[in-house]
């Protein structure tokens, strides 16, 4: 029993940790693009990578202050959004999807390539760029703090605090936006672009704004991740993360302000709980070693997540926060 509570505590830490924040910020960005505006961005991780590397390269390679690194990361995300959006947003939705998925994979390969090594340090990645950030913490970062049955390092706690603050501010921003006439236009674009054009709105500009905003949120997520791991490595930014963020968004409920946040927390909680829980059960002999060995747990937990998502889509297609009536309109 005590072990199960431990497993819960570990899972809770994962649900609150910087990885959940990373996923939440990616998903909030996707929510703006996909949930509200109907844009298919399948390369959200590219924005996160630019955010993370914006700090990493600026600080450890160019010796710039931390805040300049943040600005560089955001600027890079804006530029990427514009580059992807300018040619594709006048076309059908599929073109943006293709362009973003290619950009995400292409950028990662570029960052780990030999020719980029002088700047990005290739596959070895960059580290030692978060000293300035950790120094900002109001508490002693060398100590460890016991919270809810788990140990948190001071630095970890600081990243998490700042991260959740960012998530809260992003949610506030999205909440303000979607209840305004701006949000109404954007949601209408999701429903039917031509109708919105016929009513005198410049659809292209709105789509671009949504793409840039979502991209910047993704970049913030990447920064939190880079600061949390204290390193930046191209292979941390696999495009699978984009789809994990989509899954979190759908789990929480698309086009809902808190949907992506709760979805991400729950996602990491479930992944971690399945992981520790299964390991505990195997160690205690509840699950026979022949049926499932400890080494298989890493894979089987994603099978469980997949199964859970399938059940969710069958029995609650609107996600946790969604409105069933709204989702069912599409099923006609």
């Amino acid at each position, binding site marked *: 029993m005590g072990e199960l509570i431990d497993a819960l505590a570990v899972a809770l830490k994962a649900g609150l940790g910087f990885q959940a924040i990373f996923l939440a910020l990616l998903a909030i960005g996707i929510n703006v693009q996909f949930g509200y505006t109907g844009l298919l961005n399948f390369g959200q991780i590219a924005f996160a990578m630019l955010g993370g590397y914006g700090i990493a390269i600026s600080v450890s390679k160019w010796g710039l202050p931390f805040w300049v690194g943040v600005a560089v990361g955001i600027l890079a995300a804006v530029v990427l959004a514009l580059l992807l959006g300018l040619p594709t947003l006048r076309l059908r939705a599929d073109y943006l999807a293709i362009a973003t998925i290619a950009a995400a994979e292409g950028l990662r390969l570029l960052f780990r390539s030999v020719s980029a090594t002088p700047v990005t340090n290739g596959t070895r990645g960059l580290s030692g760029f978060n000293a300035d950030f950790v120094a900002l913490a109001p508490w002693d970062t060398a100590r460890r703090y016991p919270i809810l049955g788990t140990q948190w390092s001071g630095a970890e706690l600081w990243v998490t605090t700042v991260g959740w603050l960012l998530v809260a501010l992003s949610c506030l921003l999205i909440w303000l936006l979607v209840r305004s006439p701006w949000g109404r236009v954007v*949601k209408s674009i999701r429903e039917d672009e031509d109708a919105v054009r016929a*009513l005198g709105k410049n659809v292209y500009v709105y789509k671009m704004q949504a793409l840039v905003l979502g991209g910047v949120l993704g970049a913030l997520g990447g920064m939190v991740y880079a600061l949390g791991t204290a390193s930046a490595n191209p292979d941390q930014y696999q495009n699978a993360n984009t789809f994990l963020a989509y899954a979190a968004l759908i789990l929480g409920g698309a086009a809902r302000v808190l949907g992506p946040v709760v979805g991400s927390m729950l996602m990491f909680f479930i992944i971690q709980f399945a992981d520790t829980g299964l390991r505990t059960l195997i160690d205690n002999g509840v699950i026979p070693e022949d049926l499932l060995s400890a080494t298989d747990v890493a894979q089987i937990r994603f099978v469980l997540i997949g199964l859970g998502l399938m059940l969710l889509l069958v029995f609650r297609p609107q996600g946790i926060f969604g409105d069933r009536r709204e989702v069912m309109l599409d099923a006609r």
Partner: protein
Amino acid sequence: MPADPTAGQPAPHGAHAASLDPAAAGRAPRLLARAALRDVPWEVGVAKPDPAIVVDGVTRTFGGLTAVSVDHLEVQRGGITGLIGPNGAGKTTLFNLLTGFDQPNTGSWSFDGRPLGKLAPHQVARLGVVRTFQLTKALSRLTVLQNMLLGAQGQKGESFLRALVPGTWRAQERANTEKAMDLLTRFKLDRKKDDFAGTLSGGQRKLLEMARALMSDPKVVMLDEPMAGVNPALTQSLLGHVKDLREQGMTVVFVEHDMDVVRDISDWVVVMAAGKVIAEGPPESISQNQAVVDAYLGAHHDAPLTVEEEDRVLAEAEAAIAREENADGDVIGSDTRREEDR
């Protein structure tokens, strides 16, 4: 018909005309438009006394097919102009061109003297030319009221930064909501205001789309088949609303297939076939126009021939062949052979 406008009104008109004063604002513009058009000759490309839209030499080709080729067309301000023609005549393509949804290969057109040639759809709409679509575009997952509010022009809260400061757009939003509710009441959709537009019936969507277009205070309303797929009772109500637009001084251009509807509400009818304007004139002139009859009934096209006509054409052709083959002309022989064929 122009002499006594009330005689042509179907009974259900009274249901929605309540919001208007029929005597003052009501009849005058309608008579103006009809009266102004009375002396206009019934010719293709004729100049109107007060044109709102002028089209010049517009062509649009899709590959080898010329979808639209209009030399000159003027639309009278403040009138209802019906655009009719067989399927594939280019009516919708012309609509798309005029509203910026498609770009022509050649030609120019203007609205109130301002050229519209290179404008994007939203710029055309901002000038006061709004359109509806043949396949209704209700924004399903928005409520009816939100659909309406989207139509309002010049909204401060639609800019990204001002959206974040509700104080800058609250008052405007309230005013727009009031206006939207007025319109919804007129279109009998006020009780549906909080329903998703996706739950409305086909006819209600048509109403909503028209009401939404009116939120922008348009000068020209272009309706693409407003009555298609609408039941007869609702058609009457829609007709009434279209007439109301004219009474309020708007210029209406609409595409329609139902000739009774066209005859009922149009001040002027433009007939298109195979991309060209083949006739224009007041509604009563159209049914007598030979070009229109040809286009619709297909004297030279694909309509089946009558038995008598078939016999005559066949006899003529065989006579011609016989004359070529034989100088004597064995017409009787070929006639009997045809009898046997039957």
